[in-house]
């Protein structure tokens, strides 16, 4: 930096400068500082602006429908989703809720043991190259597009389920649940591993000093200490499953049905929006009903993320 830099010439090096005068000086560094402050601020709030913007947009389309046309008892209590019926259009989402819940539930049954197991192995047991390779592979798993997962469900799992379980059709809750479980596993593994890593080494050392085996250390000390973070990992996985669309649309059978077994067809809220919004008359009841589904999805995922966040916060407080 030369002394002629900036609008006001700096005094030669070594000359004492009274502090307030230096702070008021509007040189290049001062402007750069201001610009960067504004940019960082804009970046920081852009997330909030987007979320609020999306919520306002979705609400504008949906709330009029909720206020005027919607019969809440029918909405939550009926399985009859018949938005284009000539006789009487009905908007019952019970079957769609049950579809989303059953597919997500099964997905969690599949992915929680695998993800937590993988996280424990990576964080506590694996060393060196194995560990790095595993981490990269799991991140790669997260990069597979959801339509590819759906394709796997349609062309590989479907005939497999028909053959193994002797059922008429293999597009069902089980198919979608397994696919969704595999999709949710990477994010759960990564977050669970972070939670385990956050447990201070002092805990492990203390347990080992008492003569505990490695498994005893993990089971009795590390897992209880990381409980909050592991809960957050599971919840984020649930959120992922709840919002997933394409793979579920392709693998679940997409039938309006209250599933009573893993081999029943089901239909998810997200898949319903994806399949029907394109052809719904803009501004019509069907269109706005689909936006109401959007509001519901948004609220639920928001609540799940909030809950996960409070768990993470709880962990930090205890850990810190």
């Amino acid at each position, binding site marked *: 930096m030369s002394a002629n830099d900036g609008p006001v010439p700096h005094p030669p090096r070594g000359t004492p400068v009274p502090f307030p005068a230096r702070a008021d000086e509007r040189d290049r560094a001062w402007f750069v500082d201001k610009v960067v402050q504004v940019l960082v601020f804009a970046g920081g709030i852009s997330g909030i602006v987007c979320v609020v913007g999306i919520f306002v947009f979705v609400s504008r389309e949906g709330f009029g429908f909720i206020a005027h046309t919607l019969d809440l008892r029918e909405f939550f209590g009926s399985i009859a989703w018949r938005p284009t019926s000539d006789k009487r259009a009905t908007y019952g989402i019970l079957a769609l809720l049950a579809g989303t819940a059953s597919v997500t539930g099964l997905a969690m049954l599949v992915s929680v043991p695998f993800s937590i197991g993988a996280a424990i192995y990576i964080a506590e047991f694996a060393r060196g190259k194995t560990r790095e390779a595993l981490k990269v592979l799991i991140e790669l798993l997260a990069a597979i597009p959801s339509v590819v997962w759906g394709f796997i469900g349609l062309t590989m799992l479907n005939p497999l389920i028909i053959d193994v379980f002797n059922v008429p059709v293999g597009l069902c809750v089980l198919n979608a649940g397994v696919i969704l479980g595999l999709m949710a596993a990477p994010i759960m593994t990564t977050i669970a591993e972070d939670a385990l890593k956050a447990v201070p080494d002092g805990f492990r050392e203390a347990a080992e000093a008492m003569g505990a085996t490695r498994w005893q250390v993990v089971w009795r000390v590390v897992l209880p200490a990381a409980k909050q973070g592991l809960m957050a990992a599971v919840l984020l996985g649930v959120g992922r499953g709840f919002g997933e669309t394409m793979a579920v649309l392709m693998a679940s059978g997409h039938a309006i049905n209250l599933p009573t077994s893993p081999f029943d067809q089901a239909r998810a809220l997200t898949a319903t929006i994806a399949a*029907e919004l394109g*052809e719904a008359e803009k501004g019509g009841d069907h269109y706005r009903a689909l936006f109401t589904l959007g509001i519901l999805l948004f609220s639920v995922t928001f609540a799940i993320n909030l809950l996960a966040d409070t768990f993470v916060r709880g962990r930090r407080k205890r850990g810190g």
Partner: protein
Amino acid sequence: MKRLAIVLALATAVGCGGGGGRTLIQSKGSDTLVNVAQAWAEAYATVDPNVAVAVSGGGSGVGLTGLIDGTTEIANSSRKIKSKEIEAARKHGIEPKEFVVGYDALAVYVHKDNPIEKITIAQLAGIYGDDGTITKWSQLGVTMPGGAQNDTIVRVSRQNNSGTYVYFKEAVLGEGHDYKLGSIDQSGSKDVVDLVARTMGAIGYSGLAYATPEVKLVPVAQDDAAPPVMPTMDTAIDGSYPIARPLFMYTAGEPQGAVKAYLDWILSDAGQKIIHDKGYAPVRKLD
């Protein structure tokens, strides 16, 4: 803005033809029609190199909505325009004009190993309708190969605003009836056929043009007394096949200039030959 652009494009086409760039015609809508609309567009490029036709699918509803919004010049539709849509169009100052460009036999598909020989409209309504009681192939007198799990009828249907879904509802289930809930709803004509091909106990409906060697077409009878009719182009033209439907193109008002020339060409023998080659019935018998 868009409207202005279209008017300008038409004016260019009518006025000089060779002066400006190419005239663009948007032809949007029905998934049933999208393949043949694409074939027409490609062939028309050699008929009139100054006109480019852009084809997109999405469904009959999308095309008609586009016509009302003024985002497309031609709406392809596999169902008749609804009175609600005509009203909406009039609100935008548009009077939709209808052209029948061909016929489509809506074929009933089953798995290729299904031994069924015929099906009546009433039986189809019993399978698909909301008050229908047919859930097993054995109720139709059909013994399915490969064990009891294949006896369950797997209903394959379409998403609830496709033109095919609407037409099948009107023609088979009858006025004022709804589909039974719980069918596997596919988002495209081809998806229905693909799923039926992979599923032993499945039944599905889709345009005749989507037939593959992997599936079997079931002859359909109007009632028990009537003879079952195989869906073919001839039976669709002469009206003996009970579930054949007209395919439409709609324009905003009386077509002019390039759009009119394009539609005239589609209805000419050259254009009708193309729809025939794509597996649909032409509007009249061709030599």
